[in-house]
Structures are given as structure tokens and as C-alpha cells.
């Protein structure tokens, strides 16, 4: 099983192996790092799915709790999130970048604003709209048993 330290090692090795010789800007560096982390996690999720397919179909749970009690979560996987992010990029590339920088890159709103060259309120709005859209998109992919009860 891949350990968190191995994940960091993998990210570092790939960063060093694939990184451009020169960084054009901070935005270039952070954008590249966030994209790289996304790819590593998606690759690993795919490998896990392949490995487990012979035994039983499984999904990797993310902490995507919505209107559920604290400590519980709706199961969604990295692969679905990746697909949804690709769809979002078709609708609004900057919002998709915002999610990538925040969720995969670990940046805060002010840092995202600086990287993308927008104001912080704009970065916050982009995040809020993108998160709502992704939540709806991912929820619609869940099995009925995982959907919240609307009654």
C-alpha cells in the first residue's frame, strides 16, 4: 500500500523529472505542482481500481460530506472528481484551475488570486460556484443508496 511519505516522494521525483528547466513565474510553478499532484492521485486511484477489480468493485472515499452527520461522508472517488473537473474546465477554465490549485495544490484564496491574477473576492466566488457545481455533478453520479433523503 502506498504510504503518505511515498506519495510525497513520488510527487518530488516527478516534479524534478518533469519540471521545466526554468519556471516562467510563480503561477507556472504552482499550476504545474497542482496538476502533478492531481495526476499522481488519479494514477494511483486507477491502479487501486485495477488491483481490486478482481476481488470486488470498490471506490475510494473522499471527504465529501454534505448534509450528512459529521464524520460521515458520501463516497465519491478521485476518478469521478477528475472527470467532473475536466467537464468544469470546458465551462469555465479559471474555475477549474481554482479548484486544482486549492484542492490539489493546497493554496489559500489569497495565493490562488495572486497566481491567477484576479482579486481575492473573485477567487472566493469562483471557488464557491465551482464547488457547488462539482457537488451537484458528483452527487448525480452516486448510487441512489448514497443520496441524501429529501423528505
Amino acid at each position, binding site marked *: *500500500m*502506498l*504510504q*503518505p511519505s511515498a*506519495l510525497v516522494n513520488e510527487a518530488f521525483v516527478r516534479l524534478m523529472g518533469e519540471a521545466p528547466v526554468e519556471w516562467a513565474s510563480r503561477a507556472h510553478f504552482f499550476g504545474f505542482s497542482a496538476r502533478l*499532484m*492531481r495526476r499522481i*492521485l488519479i494514477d*494511483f486511484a486507477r491502479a487501486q481500481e485495477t488491483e481490486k477489480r478482481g476481488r470486488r468493485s470498490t471506490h*475510494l*472515499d*473522499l*471527504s*465529501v*460530506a*454534505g*448534509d450528512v452527520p*459529521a464524520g460521515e*461522508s458520501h463516497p465519491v472517488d*478521485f476518478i469521478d472528481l477528475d472527470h467532473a473537473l475536466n467537464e468544469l474546465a*470546458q*465551462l*469555465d477554465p479559471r474555475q477549474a484551475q481554482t*479548484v486544482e490549485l*486549492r*484542492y*490539489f495544490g*493546497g493554496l489559500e484564496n489569497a495565493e490562488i488570486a495572486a497566481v491567477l491574477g484576479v482579486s481575492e473576492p473573485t477567487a472566493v*466566488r469562483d471557488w*464557491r*460556484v465551482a*464547488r*457547488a*457545481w*462539482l*457537488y*451537484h455533478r458528483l*452527487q448525480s453520479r452516486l448510487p441512489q443508496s448514497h443520496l*441524501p433523503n429529501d423528505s
Partner: protein
Amino acid sequence: MTPEIYRQAGELFERLRQLPEGELPAALDAAGISNELRVEVLRLIEADRKAARSFLENRAVEDAARLLAPETQGLPAAGTGCGRDGRRV
């Protein structure tokens, strides 16, 4: 959905998302928008209210650590006595 519809939905969502639920229909009527746009705005508002607590609040690396090494969830908190005589180590 087109990027333009999505952009308009996002703008209306930002303007209306904090309205009490009972005031939303009238506000959407007053906006004079298409049914498609109205549905998208309502979807975003509903999702925002459900997702506000914790959706994607963790960073990916935190989720990955939890997924990839679930056994670490059982580790004692920092400072927990775990020496032979319960002293901090």
C-alpha cells in the same frame, strides 16, 4: 449547458444564494430568465447549501493520506503517554 449559461447561472447564484428559500421563486421570476437558467441556478443554490459544511474542505493530500494509510487513523494524539510507564516519549 453552454459556458455562457454557466456564467450567467454563477452570477445569479452569487446574487441570490443567501436569500431565504421562500423568497427565491419571486426573485427568479423577477430576473426574467429562461427555464434552463432557472434550473441551473436552483441546482447551484441547493448544492451550495448541502456542500457548505465540508465538501472538498480537506486538501487532496489529506484525503489521500486517509485513503492510502487508514491504519494511521488509530495513532495516538501528540503528547499521549505511550512509554512503558505511561510517560510522554
